Structure formats: C-alpha cells, structure tokens
C-alpha cells in the first residue's frame, strides 16, 4: 500500500456542518461521510448550538450567512463559552479583510466559496491532525515510485528520475495526499504559492503536470499520475 502522511483517522471524529443551503449541506455531508468521518448537519444557528452542546463535535464547518444569526456571532459565542472544537469557516465573503475578521473571531481556518472538495477534505485532515500530529515522513512510496524528501531524489523501478525542483515538489505534494485527488487551487496555493488561481496559472499547472507525467509515467507500463477531469490530479496505483 501507499505510505502516506495523512495516516489513519480516528473513527470517533465528529463533524458538524452549519449551513442553511440544503443541497450544499447534503452534498458536503455525504462527501465527508464517504471518507470516514461522522457527520451532523444543522440548518440554523439554534439547531447548531443545540448540536454543539449535546453531541460535542470535534470540528465545525460554519457558513457565515445564515438566516437569523450571522455565523460570526455564533463563533464568538461558542468561543466565549469556551467550547473546545475546531472551526472551519466556509463563506463566499472571501477578501483578506473577511479572513482576518473570521480568524480574529476564533476560527481555525477559512475557506472561500466556491472551494474544491478535495481542498476541503485536505483542510479538515490538517485541522484534525493537530490533535495527533503525524511525524514528517521522509520516505514516500507510491507503487514502485519512491521519493526521498531529505535527499530530494525520486526513483521508479530502480531508475533515478531527473526532476526539476518544481517537479519534485509537485510529485511529493501529490504523493503526500495518499491517492486523494488534489485540485488545481491546492496546487496553485501550496506548490506555486500563488494567492489566487487564474487562467495563466491553470495553464502553467497543466503543462507542468504533463511534463511530470512524461518523466515518471511514459517510460513505464503502469500509469500512476491520474487526471480526474473537472477535479484535479491524483498519484496512485490504478484500481484493478
């Protein structure tokens, strides 16, 4: 199997979604359940409060624009009460100022709508990992592809791969997600360190992925770097 940084998730992790849009809420719930978390949903602030106090979730996904009360008020009240849970804000108000206000009110992370679902999963994992931080894995392995982070070298089937620095970073980033899909937004932010994603960056990412694929996959029969149309990329052994 793949050796990944994400590690096994404790089964008891409970996530509460406070979101008034039913479709959004349902889609999020089924997507998050699918990766093994327990999910609760609330359509209003009152319901959310009730669930926070009765169910004690570990993580709250909070929409800021709720019918009766602003999400920020809920957050401030929860923090005043000293509620012990991680909070990830999901909102379409996505300027730097909004982020500062949200984080200032006690949020642990902030994700602007529309976001890519793989990115949401990555953020949730990152927040949950803070409880039991996984140690930095120096050796990564996907199939017969091995990467050494310390020496910054990669091998496949015993052959050394000649990668540029960017290509190596990209490969390690994909490998660290353990077969999960990585979206272009995540790559733009984490590998290219761009603040926003726009057409030129997308183009650069696509070309870079194509070149990486040529180096790590083209000479071999088993293709590891997958493009999932509309979603992004993943590095994994193909399912039989």
């Amino acid at each position, binding site marked *: 199997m793949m050796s990944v940084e994400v590690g096994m998730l404790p089964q008891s992790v409970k996530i509460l979604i406070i979101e008034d849009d039913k479709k959004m809420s349902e889609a999020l719930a089924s997507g998050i359940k699918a990766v093994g978390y327990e999910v609760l949903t609330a359509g209003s602030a009152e319901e959310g409060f009730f669930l926070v106090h009765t169910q004690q979730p570990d993580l709250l996904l909070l929409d800021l624009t709720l019918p009766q009360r602003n999400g920020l008020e809920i957050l401030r009240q929860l923090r005043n009460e000293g509620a012990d849970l991680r909070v990830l804000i999901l909102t379409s108000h996505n300027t730097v100022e909004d982020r500062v206000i949200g984080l200032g009110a006690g949020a642990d992370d902030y994700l602007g709508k*529309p976001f890519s679902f793989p990115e949401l999963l990555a953020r949730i994992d990152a927040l949950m990992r803070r409880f039991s931080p996984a140690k930095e894995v120096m050796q990564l392995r996907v199939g017969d592809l091995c990467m050494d982070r310390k020496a910054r070298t990669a091998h496949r089937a015993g052959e050394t791969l000649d990668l540029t620095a*960017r290509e190596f970073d990209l490969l390690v980033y994909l490998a660290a997600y353990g077969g999960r899909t990585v979206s*272009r937004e995540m790559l733009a932010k984490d590998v*290219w360190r761009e*603040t*926003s*994603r*726009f*057409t*030129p*960056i*997308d*183009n*650069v990412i696509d*070309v*870079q992925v*194509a*070149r990486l694929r040529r180096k790590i996959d083209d000479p071999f029969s088993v293709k590891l770097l997958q493009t*999932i*149309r*509309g*979603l992004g990329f993943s590095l994994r052994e193909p399912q039989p």
Partner: protein
Amino acid sequence: LTLWPSSNLRTRLTFWYVGLLAVLLLVYATLVFVFQYAVLTKQIAHDEIQDVVTVEGLLYFDGNGALQLRQDYYSRPQSHLLVDRLMEVRDASGAVLYRSSTLNGMGLGGSLEPGEGDADFGERLVRLADGTRVLRISHVHGMSGRQLVIRLGYSLAPLQARMLQFLLVLLLAVPVALVIAGAAGHEIARRALRPVERMASRAEGITATNLHDRLEIANPKDELGQLATVFNHLLDRLDQSFQQLQRFTADAAHELRTPLAALRTIGEVTLQDDVEKESYKEALSSILEETSRLSETIDALLLLARAEANQGAVASKVWPLRQLVDEVLGLLEVVTEEKQILVIHDNGTDCHPKVRADRGLLRTALLNVVHNAIKFSPAGSSLRITYSSLEGVPPLIELEVQDEGPGIASGEHERVFDRFFTSSARETAGQSGAGLGLSVARLVLERLGGSIRFDPQVKSGAACIITLPALIN
C-alpha cells in the same frame, strides 16, 4: 456672513447691504449738518461785521452828551422794526452808553473783557439773561475823542430752529431711504440668485434614469455659469461611469449566463436518456470544468473591482520592473519551454528603472499580458521583450512584448481591451479565456499612471506596448 446661519443668502445679502447703506447715510448726514451749520454761522458773523461798520456811521452824541443811533436812514419808517439787531455801546471804563431796545434792558454779555474789540472784530458766543444764544461782534471805535466799544449781535435762535428742522428732515429721510433700498436690494438679490434656484430644482430632478440631463447655462462667463459648467462636467463623469457600470453589469450577466447555459444543457441532456455510467462521469466532469471557468470569471471581476477601488494610494511600494517581469517569465517558463519559445531580452538602457505599484496587481497585469502573448505564439517562435526609457516629466519606462503569433485583426487593436472581448478572427478561436485578462491589465496600468496598447503598425505578430512612470533613484 455667519451671523444668521439659518437665514437664506438673499436675506443676509439684503441685511448687509442695508446695514452698510445706513452707516454711509448717517456719516453723510452728519457731515452735511456740521458743514451747513458752520457755513450759516460764518454768514451771520459776516453780516454782523457789515452791520457794525454801518452802525459806526450812525452813532452820534446828542446835546446832552448821550449816545444816540440815527434812525432816519430807513427808506420806510417801519423798516427798523424788522431789524433784530442787538447792540450795546460802552466806553473804555465799561459804562453802558447805549443799549438797543431789542435787548429789553439785558446786557449783551457781561462787563468788558480785557482787550475786547482791540483786534479788529472780536467774535464771541454769549448767552443773554433770558437764555438766548447770541453771536456777538465787538469793535473798538474812536468818536469825538472817546474810545467806544461797540457790541453787536444777532440771536442764533432762528438758525438753530432751522437746523433742527433740517435735522428732522434728515432723520425722517434716512429710514425711508433705507426701507426703499432694502426692498430694492432684496429684489435684486432675488433676481441675481434666481439662476441658482433654477439650477437647484433642475439638479434635484436628475436621477439615475436621466443622468444625461444637464443644467442650462445662461452666461458661461459669469460665476453662476462657471458653477453650472463645473456641475455639468461632474454629471458627465458620473454619467460615464454609470453607463460603464451598466454596460459592465450587462456584459457580466451575459458572460455568466453562457457557462450557466452550458451547465444546464449538459445536465438536461445527460438526464434525458438512460446512459452508461461513463456518460454520467463525462457530464459531471464537464460541469465541473464549466463551474471552474465561472468562478475564475467571478474572481477576475472581483479583481477588476478591487483595482478600480484601489486608486494606487494603498500598499504602493517601489519595485524594479525588470525583476517583476523576470518573475512572471519564470512562472511561465514551463509553458515557454514546452512550446519551445525563445524569450529574447532586449535591454535598451543600462539603468534598472523602478516603478511604484501594488505588487500583486502589477504582477497580475504583467502575467496576463505575457501569458496572452505566449498563448498565441506558435511553437518554436520567439518572444521579444524590450525595455526602453522615454524622456519626459515624469520619465517613462516602456516595455514591449512582441510575439510572432497571428497578430491582431485590423480594427481590433483597441477592442481587445474591452471586457469579455473575444476576437472574431478564426486563428484565435478556441484559445480564448474569460476575456478579462487584458481588461484587468489595462485597468491596473492606468491606475498606476501608465498605459497599454497594441502597436497597430506591427503587421507580423502582435506588439504590446506598456508604459509606466519610472522612478530612477
């Protein structure tokens, strides 16, 4: 003009006008009164001196040695009754030798003063026992070997009565004049300010729906005309931005509708028939691609809004332009390598000009321009980047990005900067993005005091020319 801040301009103008006029009239009346009094008094003194000279010839001592005044020179006997002359004659010792009947036995002033009448005609204001004020002339006259002092005076009472009348007339006339002036002033102010009222009511009627309406300008040279002109220019600018906003909103709605229509059609077509699992996957993938394009369009719109709101004042630091361009080329290097595009730097000047800018915005603008050039460059071609300095105040740095692509169709050199513009030329079909990249670039560069255009002279490929104000140390 701030004494009555609540009253209107017309009232205040009238008030100040009337107040000023009142002060002027009072000063004028006082001067006239004083001057008139002085002139009349002088006239009386003059008459008295003449009278003294006349009287000198009419005095004589009668047989008893008493001093008499000859009365027979009057043409008519009753005329002497009209003479209200007051006269007294004393000798050097002060004894009264003669006193006119008009004095009714009262003395014309007290006893002789030392040296009285020595110097020609001594003039003095005295008060009789009954309170009448008299202007008195004293004159020393030698007669029959004796020194006589002739004292002669007229009562000032008639003069004072006349002056009082004059004063009353003045005091009555001034308020009347002020009332008339006030009414006239108020009316003049009203007429002068009437254009302001018209402008106000006209301006009040201008709303978003009739922003093209303008104030009428009666006389463009006067102050109110200038005010109206300035106001009309303001309306012009407002109208322009409003129209731009409306166009933009309409464009944006249209552009958002296109991917939405695609989303809807893909969904509907896929759901219509029972299809394979693969077809569903295919449909969902293209839906996701469309949403991704949609959200990029929205991001670009927000960036445009941000660039429009940011007037260059915030977060503007100084950056070497070359460093930013190199960074952008570095980011796009993988694409240029892939297309085997040769990037040629042509640094015309040795200096490394710096520019003042919001780094993120300028970088986005440059990225859009360079990416645009690379996108349309055929494989194996070259991309030439030229820097040159332009003299001027302020000095400008010119950056030219020239590609060997299909170029820009004639007549589209300006339109490529329009929001959501996509070329009608066939060569570029299928390569267009959201159509906002160059609009963003133009907006950002114009905010920085620079410009961007495509050189219409260049026929092979496209040459994008960017100018920016340069800071050379």
